[in-house]
């Protein structure tokens, strides 16, 4: 009979092997699903690969998708380390987009480009942080479950965006399409490389990751969040202000998700619309987990999943393969990853006869 036996030490190389195998399982089941639907999996994966990494332009598009992922994940890591479940990155991302768009659309007069970008960056971070702090305060005061509230706030943010796009902020010249006027030139993020859509947003992302890495590895706050995440009672006992740290962490998390929203509208779309990268908020959860909440590994994982997203989108257009395949692969990868954690602390053993 099979059983699990406790390990005396954690095999460190498993932390590299498990994510890779998980991704492979995700891809394998994805391939089977594609084959069941009567499509050749080699075509699909070949398509994703070439659309994600096949050319400089394809790779730049992957980085475009990776930018918001890196930003959101960097923020999620801070709260996930405390075992606070911010599932609301999507809503915070929308709020960041809305807040910064307000300035781009209605308050851009007389501001130079650097000023305008500054205003948009700050407003997006404030917007995201506010959206993250609502559920945080409810959790701290009344123990309202943050998984549910942050998630509900995603829907609420989305309908606020829809309301604006179909109503007050709608571009009268959009022929009924739910989108705003195009931003003025001063509100558009400069592109890094000619003929790509890659903007300085990626630099914001890399700076953010570095700051988060520094916070976690080097700062007192980093020590505190580790203790809180492992045992909140011990944290209180050690005199850590748990609630204060949770508020700071959620504010950082929301602010970075908000900033991601800004880089998307200001850098890529150039106006506000209903569909702005819906899946980043959820994909970032997977990215954070597959990177074992390590900020630097996040960059690599974001590029990988950014590629999957970007390749998947292209595939939907070129081969008419549903984008659902991306969610399928992502979810199976996440299942495998969560399930495989047991092998860090236990080994599978076989015992003859009775257990």
């Amino acid at each position, binding site marked *: 009979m099979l*059983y*699990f*036996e*406790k390990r005396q030490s954690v095999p460190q190389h498993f932390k590299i092997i498990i994510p890779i195998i998980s991704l492979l399982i995700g891809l394998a089941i994805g391939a089977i*699903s594609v084959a069941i*639907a009567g499509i050749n999996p080699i075509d699909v994966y070949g398509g994703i690969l070439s659309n994600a990494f096949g050319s400089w332009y394809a790779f730049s598009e992957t980085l475009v998708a990776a930018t918001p992922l890196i930003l959101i994940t960097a923020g999620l890591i801070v709260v996930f380390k405390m075992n606070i*479940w911010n*599932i609301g990155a999507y809503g915070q991302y929308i709020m960041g987009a809305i807040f910064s768009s307000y300035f781009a659309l209605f308050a851009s007069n007389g501001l130079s480009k650097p000023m305008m970008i500054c205003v948009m960056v700050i407003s997006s971070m404030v917007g995201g942080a506010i959206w993250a702090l609502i559920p945080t305060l*409810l959790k701290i005061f*009344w*123990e*309202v*479950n943050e*998984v*549910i*509230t942050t*998630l*509900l*706030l995603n*829907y*609420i943010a989305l*309908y*606020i965006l*829809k*309301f604006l796009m*179909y*109503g007050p902020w709608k571009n009268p010249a959009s022929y009924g399409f739910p989108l705003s006027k195009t931003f003025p030139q001063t509100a558009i993020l400069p592109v890094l490389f000619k003929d790509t859509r890659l903007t300085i947003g990626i630099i914001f992302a890399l700076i953010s990751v570095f700051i988060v890495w520094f916070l976690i590895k080097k700062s007192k706050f980093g020590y505190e969040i580790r203790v809180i995440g492992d045992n909140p009672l011990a944290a209180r006992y050690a005199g850590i202000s748990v609630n204060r740290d949770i508020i700071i962490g959620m504010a950082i998390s929301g602010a970075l998700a908000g900033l991601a929203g800004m880089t998307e509208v200001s850098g890529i779309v150039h106006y506000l619309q209903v569909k702005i990268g819906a899946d980043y908020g*959820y994909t970032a*959860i*997977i990215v954070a*987990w597959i990177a074992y909440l390590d900020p630097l590994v996040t960059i690599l994982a974001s590029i990988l999943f950014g590629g999957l997203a970007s390749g998947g989108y292209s595939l939907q257009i070129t081969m008419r393969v*549903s*984008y*659902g*395949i*991306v*969610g*399928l*692969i*992502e*979810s*199976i990868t*996440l*299942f495998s990853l*969560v*399930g*495989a*954690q*047991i092998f860090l602390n236990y080994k599978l053993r076989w015992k003859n006869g009775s*257990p």
Partner: protein
Amino acid sequence: MVHHSIYISLLANTIKAGTILLFPTIGEIFSERAGILNLGVEGMMLVGAFIGFIVSYITKNPYLGFIAGVIAGGIASLIHAFISITLRGNQIVSGLALTIFGGGFTTFYGQKWINMTLNNTLPIIKIPILNKIPYIGPIFFNQDLIVYLSYITVFVMWFILYRTTTGLNLRAVGENAKAANAMGISVYKVRYIWTFFGGLLAGAGGAYLTTSYAPFWLDSITAGRGWIAIALVIFAMWDPLKALFGAYLFGGINALQFQLQATGTTIPSAILNMLPYIGTFIVITISSIIVKTKHIKPPKELGIPYIREEK
């Protein structure tokens, strides 16, 4: 008299819309009572809705479709059960993965079914005598078979929970798994059974949606109802009877929103569509305050993997 019938039909629709939430809420209550938090309700509902829809479409029999949807939800829940019970994985993340899975799976395979409509929906079966009761009759007893099944489910499950050994074992496992194990109850078995049951009922909610309330196919057709159901579990304080009120309250919001949209209103549709989520947000906040001030505790073992001591 015209106004009168509008209210009756609004309330009858409330029951219908509430039924979509009632099944998954009951299912999640039992799963959580066993100590397993399954945040994949939305995903299981989507799978149930999708399979329910296509089986109804192909067989032209909504009952078969409904049953298929129920089973599909159950099967989906087994992934979560395996990861959180056998592999002792993080239940929050596994549940989220299940939700993403439900979305991905149904979007991928549902591509060619988008905007198709079902002609044979669940037929109304009037219950003789009872449906003649003024007000009550047309609201509660002028419904389809699945609605009646939901009434039975609530009361039977309440009875099982509080009056039978099965319910006793379930409650013990969710409150103190170690003690339950010491009394010879298999914690793993109980958890598998009730997580599966939760999946069946989530599937039922989804399947009821596409075989009766909204008989067509769209991506993410459940639109967050799975999350509302999870919130309702807290509203119901893990009691099946209280779940009935919560589900019908939100069914009411849904029905009202639908009616307003149909009759034409000046309220923007985005605001109308936001209502259920705002409502859920408020309800979960208030219920949490009540739970906290009245010192009601969720099942103690909720979300904690059970590790039988090594032999």
